């Protein structure tokens, strides 16, 4: 699969054509500042030149600073989100997200809402939250679960 072609099949993904690798995205990126493994300019460049996606895409904080700064209006953050979807389609859901998906399938929340949480809510005079199985059904129907 050619990542660039896959990206260009989406409206936001097509904007990768605008990128001229100026590095404004990386210059403002909070994750890049603290972690040399992460560099959005390199991620976009690699997709265009080598047609590749690597694990570093999961270090994006999704803060949109890059996208707001981009002088060519390349949708940098949206492109990295699209890359994550392509990654999941190819390699499956990353280990660190699997527990969240399991919780969603079990109760409809990303965390396990148990007796403790609802007892606290009762003490505060708040209504309890209820588990639901509709989200499990949606995940099944759309093929979003762990394969």
């Amino acid at each position, binding site marked *: 699969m050619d990542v660039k072609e896959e990206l260009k099949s989406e409206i936001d993904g097509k904007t990768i054509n605008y990128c001229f690798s100026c590095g404004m995205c990386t210059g403002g990126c909070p994750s890049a500042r603290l972690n040399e493994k992460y560099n959005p300019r390199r991620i976009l460049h690699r997709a265009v030149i080598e047609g590749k996606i690597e694990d570093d895409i999961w270090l994006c904080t999704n803060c949109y600073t890059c996208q707001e700064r981009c002088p060519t209006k390349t949708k940098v953050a949206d492109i990295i989100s699209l890359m994550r979807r392509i990654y999941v389609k190819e390699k499956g859901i990353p280990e660190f997200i699997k527990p969240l998906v399991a919780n969603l399938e079990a*109760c409809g929340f990303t965390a396990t809402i148990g007796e403790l949480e609802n007892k606290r809510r009762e003490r505060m*005079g708040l209504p309890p939250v209820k588990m639901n199985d509709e989200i499990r059904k*949606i995940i099944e129907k759309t093929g979003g679960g762990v394969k």
Partner: protein
Amino acid sequence: MKNKYAYFIGCTIPFRASNYDLATKKVAEKLGIELVDLPDAGCCGLYFELMNEMTYLSMAARVLSMAEEKKLDLLVLCNGCNGSLYRANKKLKENPELKDGVNKVLAEVGREYKGTIEVKHLIRVLYEDVGIERIKKKITNPLTNVKAAAHYGCHLLKPSEEIRFDDPRNPVSLDRLIEVTGAKSVDYYDKSQCCGGYVLAADAKTAYRMTGEKLTHVKAAGSDIMITGCPFCNVMYDANQKAAETETGQTYKIPVLHYPQLLALAMGVDPKELGFEQNRVRPDMKLFVKGL
């Protein structure tokens, strides 16, 4: 003015920040706003935005359909839910084919998305729908001794091309909402920075360093407290403050309040009714209540 909303609390709030829910209800009561609970709602679909578009849009549309059934706009408390639901709603309204696809999925759970309501974050409702002037009339306990640092977070304002609220580079809404309580909103370095919450699961070290950097700047600005409008940002700065301290080797001890906790105090609500037992770094109530 609108005074009734469908009310969505998502996942983080019932799990870790019911105090935010509680304080919002106290504030809504003071302002004469009716909030209609959606106890069956569950998750907004945020994580699937990164993994599978159809799962994401269907989960979001399911929540949106619950507000549509009540013929009410949807008030959300979490920046993550705001980004996820606001953008899904916009995308589905603009793409009839996607909407049809989503409705085929929702038919499985007996629901239908129509595209008839709007999604609004609490901060946006207070700033745009209620307005500073109307809030000002309800302030009975001006918090003139308090210096507070506003943290906007990301998905309240961005992507600005879609969300179109306030100015993402130089936002003022939360600062004005802090100042109407009588508190001083202090400026600090790198104010629009992200909390790091989104990378917590993938790389906790980077996330906590990001959290710690901001706490360092807030402390350097001499702020008494920090104010958030997102439960997950709050988790990062409050519940995970110790982890951030371990990462940066500094000590912060900065209480982090959900915005409606601050507003409710200024409206004279008893601190005992605002769930402060769930704030990990406890604020000194003498800051807010005279004669304690």
